């Protein structure tokens, strides 16, 4: 059984991080260059970590499967990044950001981690501005803010509707500076396919070059995974097509525990599905809920009528009605379930009945069309490209879609997994968002982990490793891992079945969405747990992966990732089945209040579930890390 010691420092909440920083071990500057660190991924967490570790003097190797580190999917985050700057003088503070985030996470995250996140949030904004990130500003030249869900202050910093892009390009520029200086060795088109463990510690990875097909071994003193979330297990999601679970799944199969995989964020404002050919769903930023009003007709009979013809009296602005104090800015999980409920009642709009209106008529009346265009112009343009409809003239139609995953590899306060030497940052870990992530918090966490946490905590581990003690890539563990990967690759290419990879991904996505989506039941999950292994068996018997391993072969890349999703999906459903409560992004129909809100069970499930691999064909072990709330009282979330 894995040892899950959270290593949360003792002392008052607000002093923990400061105290920890003064107590953890340091690596002498002259010794830092003797340590090599592998960073996998170059999104916000990966590129900020790689750049900062290189600035400190460590030798860094950065691996990305994209053709450039700038392509990582952090780039697509639209709305903003939270920070407790209190520049608006509206009562914000580190404590409030901490409290909103822990409440937003439905009391399923670790207090100490979340408080640290709120503390360093202010440094992130300073850092990004210094790098030249062009945040929105007021006429006086100071930084502008807007509001996001789950908060009653304006603490979100933004760069039009492209905040993720600008923050990532800032981190990419820092990364590029260190690559140019020779301090980081960048490997593009390089997919991590295995983690190598030597003497119980993470000491390297096996990588496939996606262009030449070459498989190589890389040794290091520590391995940092910043490989993002696993939402594409649902096939249709707002993730990039390439986003995958492979790196963290293969680390799981080498002993790292997978925590709370069932916590999946379904974002309320996405463009609805139109057809079976569809490859992705597009998000309409939560920032739109600052000015857009969400409604459906009061009567089902009106659902296909032109929205403008439905008088005010016949509209149900259901979020404003049910949650008067937060209104349209209630948290994502709450807004998504409310949309599902009104659609289940038959009041959903559009041909499919799976849609609600997000209406800007009132905002256009208040701000003028030009005012709305300045705030959200690019989002309205995206909406128009996809739907051929103008949201200036008629309301947007939106529906929830898979957007983010709160679960991930288990890490302690130092962001180290239960495998010594393996660190996990950003969306790939589980630690800061509990069962639900608030808007504008993902960018904050990715950069907090990379710029301000790992640079301190990795030293604590490395100081215990003798300089120059990392194993050679000729060690038997590397050889065995490489042979394992070569075997899996030839197996996939040898099947030559009848169906393309996409066929299996779509079917898995359908199972996941229908049985483990916005509303989960015991019966549905048990059904999914039968269907997924059967589909997996069919995949390994009947998938067609054409071409060879010695060239760019996108079907082979996809097959490896979908093969992993077919295993991981089962664990996600198992976690959802075993968590017999509703909380945040995990809603079990059996556990709800009469008004449809989540019914948590803090006595029996006030813990992290960290799954431990037990070998092929054997049931994984469910380890528990109790969540000790010392400073905040676990209570029922109330956004009314």
């Amino acid at each position, binding site marked *: 059984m894995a040892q899950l010691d959270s290593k949360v420092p003792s002392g008052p909440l607000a002093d923990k991080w400061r105290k920890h920083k003064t107590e953890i071990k340091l690596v002498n500057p002259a010794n830092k260059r003797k340590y090599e660190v592998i960073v996998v991924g170059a999104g916000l967490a990966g590129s900020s970590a790689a750049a900062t570790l290189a600035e400190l003097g460590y030798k860094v190797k950065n691996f990305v499967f994209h053709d450039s580190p700038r392509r990582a*999917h952090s780039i697509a985050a639209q709305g903003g990044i939270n920070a407790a700057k209190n520049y608006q003088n509206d009562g914000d503070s580190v404590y409030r950001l901490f409290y909103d985030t822990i409440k937003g996470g439905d009391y399923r995250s670790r207090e100490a981690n979340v408080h640290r996140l709120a503390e360093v949030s202010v440094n992130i904004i300073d850092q990004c501005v210094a*790098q030249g990130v062009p945040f*929105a500003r007021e006429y006086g030249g100071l930084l502008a803010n807007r509001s996001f869900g789950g908060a009653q202050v304006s603490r979100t910093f933004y760069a039009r509707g492209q905040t993720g892009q600008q923050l990532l390009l800032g981190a990419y520029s*820092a990364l590029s500076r260190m690559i140019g200086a020779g301090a980081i060795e960048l490997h593009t088109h390089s997919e991590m396919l295995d983690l190598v463990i030597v003497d119980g510690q993470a000491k390297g990875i096996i990588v496939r070059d996606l262009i030449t097909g070459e498989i190589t071994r890389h040794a290091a003193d520590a391995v940092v995974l910043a490989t993002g979330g696993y939402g594409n297990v649902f096939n249709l999601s707002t993730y990039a097509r390439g986003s995958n679970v492979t790196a963290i799944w293969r680390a799981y199969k080498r002993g790292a525990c997978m925590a709370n995989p069932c916590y999946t964020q379904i974002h309320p404002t996405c463009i609805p599905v139109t057809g079976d050919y569809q490859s992705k769903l597009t998000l309409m930023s939560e920032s739109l809920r600052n000015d857009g009003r969400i409604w459906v007709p009061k009567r089902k009979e009106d659902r296909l009528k032109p929205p403008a013809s439905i008088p005010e009296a016949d509209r149900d602005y259901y979020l404003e009605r049910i949650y008067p104090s937060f209104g349209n800015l209630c948290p994502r999980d709450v807004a998504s379930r409310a949309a599902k409920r009104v659609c289940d009642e038959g009041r959903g709009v559009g041909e499919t009945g799976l849609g609600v209106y997000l209406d800007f008529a009132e905002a256009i009346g208040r701000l003028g069309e030009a005012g709305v265009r300045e705030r959200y112009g690019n989002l309205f343009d995206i909406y128009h490209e996809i739907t*051929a409809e103008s949201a200036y003239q008629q309301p947007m139609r939106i529906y929830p879609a898979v957007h983010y995953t709160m679960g991930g590899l288990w890490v302690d306060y130092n962001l180290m997994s239960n495998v010594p030497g393996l660190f996990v940052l950003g969306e790939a870990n589980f630690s800061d968002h509990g069962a639900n992530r608030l808007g504008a918090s993902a960018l904050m966490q990715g950069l907090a982990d990379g710029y301000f946490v790992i640079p301190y905590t990795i030293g604590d581990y490395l100081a215990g490793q003798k300089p120059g003690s990392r194993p050679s890539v000729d060690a038997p563990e590397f050889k065995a891992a490489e042979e394992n990967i070569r075997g899996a690759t030839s197996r996939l290419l040898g099947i030559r079945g009848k169906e393309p990879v996409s066929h299996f991904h779509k079917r898995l996505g359908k199972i996941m969405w229908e049985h483990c989506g916005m509303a989960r039941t015991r019966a549905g999950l048990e059904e999914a747990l039968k269907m997924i292994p059967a589909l997996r068996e069919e995949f390994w018997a009947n998938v067609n992966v*054409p071409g060879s391993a010695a*060239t760019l072969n*996108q079907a082979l890349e996809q097959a490896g990732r979908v093969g992993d999703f077919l295993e991981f999906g089962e664990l996600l459903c198992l976690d959802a089945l075993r968590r017999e409560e509703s909380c945040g992004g995990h809603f079990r129909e059996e556990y709800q209040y009469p008004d449809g809100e989540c019914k948590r069970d803090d006595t029996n499930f006030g813990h992290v579930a960290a799954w431990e691999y037990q070998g092929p064909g054997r049931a994984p072990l469910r380890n528990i890390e109790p969540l000790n709330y010392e400073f905040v009282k676990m209570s029922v979330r109330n956004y009314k």
Partner: protein
Amino acid sequence: MVAETTAKTLNVTLRVWRQAGPDAPGKFVDYAARNLSSNMSFLEMLDVVNDELTMKGEEPIAFAHDCREGICGTCSCTINGKPHGPGHGIATCQTYMRSFQDGDTIVVEPFRARAFPLVKDLVVDRSAFDRIIQAGGFITARTGSAPDANAIPVPKTDADLAMDAAACIGCGACVAACKNASAMLFVSAKVSQLGLLPQGQPERDQRVLAMVGTMDALGFGNCTNQYECSAACPKAISHDFIARMNRDYLKASVRAAFKPVSASASGGAG
């Protein structure tokens, strides 16, 4: 899942550039794409064609893509002679089949430029862009050393203009559209973003000199003011930034020639 009634069905012929690798000969191959929904994206259409090829035992068409929402800059097709296709201010992935007519023949090629060597089919190597950024496309701001974010106010007009330039997604359409395969729009966007901000001033001269020098060394051509770059740019970045970069470059060159340099500039005080 029911298709929206606004969708029309269309059949098109795809004429696609197929090339097994950088040294292999390439050629156009025709494929029939049938029963497509006009609500499909162009890349979803390629997905469908690729699945059909796979089931016939043929190798699918390699094409670059990832976010499919016009922000990552990965997709890179030239469609009917236009980088990113017929739409203005959008990327290939934001092109929908409703932009085409039933019966059309659609010619699909990779972005072509000497500095973007072909990898396979529609995929090219754009790492030259990364090397230009590595040469100087940054502000040196070591983590942990930043002053308070509101310590230096930035006029809104400058911040807005910097954001216009910063919107570049690094896709390379500007290079593919230019008869000289010039990267001036890409480089000028980064030079202008950082040069407009107070934080970017200390390195302003060395930045523009290093980035332009690297751009030239990597085999990109020069600008002859045709502005095909801006017309093809999925973020509609203005060619005015090229003029701004040229001014910066000239000033920096002159200053570099005459600026006094401290004799002990590289040494520390011990």
